[in-house]
Structure formats: C-alpha cells, structure tokens
C-alpha cells in the first residue's frame, strides 16, 4: 500500500472486509488469569473442605487468605499487560467491566447475605450463579464456546445444589472451577499460542 491508487467501489468494499477480518483475528486473551484463579480457587475450596470435614479444624476458612497475594499478582500482571499491549478492543474493555461487576457483586452478596439475617445462610448457590455470569459473558464477547459452556455449567451446578446435601456442597466449587475456568483457560492458552505462532 505504498502509493495511493484509484479504487473502484468493489475494491473499496473488499479492502474494508479484509481489514475488518484482520481486526477480528486479533486475540489478546491468553487464558493466564483464568488458569491462575481457577487453580487457586480449586485448591482453596478443596483444602477448606478437607480441613473442615476431615481435620475439623476451627479456622478452615483461613486457606482463602491465599487469594490475597494472587490479587496483588493480578494487579501487577494487568498493569504490565497494559503497558505491552498493542491493541485494545471494545470486547476487552467490556470484559474488564464484567469481571469488575463480578468482584463487586461477589463481595457484596457473600458479605451482605449472611449479615442481613440472624439465620445461617447457605451462600453456595449464589456463589455458583455468580461464577457463571462473567464466564458466560466473556465467552459471548470473545466468541469462545468453552467459556460459554463453562458459565452454563456453573448455573447447572447452582440448580444441582437443591439435590446435594449442604455439607458437601462446597465441592461444587472445584467442579465449577474445572469446567468454567481451568479447562477453558487451557483451551484459551492453546488458541492464543496457535494464533501467535501463525
């Protein structure tokens, strides 16, 4: 495209189509954060279950403090990615806000639901329903079906809690992590490597 050429309307449309196709190919999601968070939440939820049911440890929830250094790592990782990224798409921006909404909702609901009543509240169905939301929407925005199915699997697990005894419902979380974040995370990683090797 060194020199300006006179184009026919057909040539113009072909060029537009080609460049829009090039933009669509741009794929910046490498699955890294899905894998980090998927495995951390998987590990924490399984550990919590074992500490509570096998060892009857009083402070079984302490294992979740492991998520704090991961939050710090995520802030560092995202700021570094922001500095090195060459293209920012509308989908990237939308997905960012979807995950922010998820974090706010997760913090509000898991804090407010138990605090708003004197009774013991089972937050597990809420947690599973919440996991499904950003996963499903990210899958739609990225046109990546494993994430869409991952989101749906979280909602299926949410419904399944009706039939699962409360004392083992915690195990729904690692299952949700596998189907919603870990498996799609590896598939995203593979797609990213394939795209960038091409």
């Amino acid at each position, binding site marked *: *495209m060194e020199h300006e050429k006179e184009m026919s309307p057909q040539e113009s449309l072909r060029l537009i189509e080609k460049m829009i196709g*090039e933009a669509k190919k741009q794929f910046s999601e490498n699955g890294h954060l899905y894998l980090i968070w998927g495995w951390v939440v998987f590990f924490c939820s399984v550990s919590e279950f074992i500490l509570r049911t096998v060892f009857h440890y009083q402070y079984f929830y302490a294992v979740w403090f492991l998520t704090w250094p991961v939050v710090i790592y995520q802030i560092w990782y995202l700021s570094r990615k922001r500095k090195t990224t060459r293209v920012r798409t509308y989908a990237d921006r939308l997905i960012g806000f979807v995950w922010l909404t998820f974090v706010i909702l997760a913090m509000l609901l898991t804090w407010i639901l138990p605090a708003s009543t004197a009774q013991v509240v089972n937050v597990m169905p809420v947690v599973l329903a919440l996991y499904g939301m950003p996963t499903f929407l990210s899958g739609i925005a990225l046109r990546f079906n494993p994430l869409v199915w991952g989101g749906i699997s979280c909602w299926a697990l949410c419904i399944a809690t009706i039939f699962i005894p409360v004392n083992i419902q915690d195990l729904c979380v690692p299952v949700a992590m596998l189907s919603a974040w870990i498996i799609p995370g590896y598939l995203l990683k593979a797609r990213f490597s394939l795209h960038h090797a091409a």
Partner: protein
Amino acid sequence: MFKELDPILHSQLRLAVMSLLIGIKEADFTFIREKTNATAGNLSVQVQKLKDAGYIDVIKQFRENYPQTTCRITPKGVEAFEAYVKALQEYLKVEK
C-alpha cells in the same frame, strides 16, 4: 444522484487504517503498519491526514522509555466511515 465518495476515505491506505480501527478500540502504530503492509513514512503521512480531518485521535506517549503512538477512531470518523460505506452500497446497487 450519487453521493460523492469522501476523498479522505477514498484512498487505499487511509481506508485500510479506518477499516482496521472501526472494530478496535485503539491500536498502536506498529500494529497498523503490520496489518496494512505500509511503510512507516507513508503511514505517518496518511495517519496525519486522518487526524487533520478529525477522523482519528493520535496519542503519543512514552511506555517503558520507548515512544508509542496509539490511534483511535473518533465519533466523527465513525460517522464518516458509515456514510462512505452507504455511498459505496449505492454505487454498487446501480452497477448491478
């Protein structure tokens, strides 16, 4: 009557840049250069023309001690691009 094709957009490289940016929030100069196969000099000139027409914003900044130029389509640019595509479609309808 035909709508006149926007002369700013009716140029191969400028149209390529606009078509690339229409679906992306922002992209850096190197990315646009790779996708359009243009030389840096030619692309700079065409990007400046698009900027002068108010069709794109050009943001120059330093990232990790290296200069980086980022381009982003403006609402005026989106409007012009849509009008251009509409005009093209009218041409094609008559030609059929």
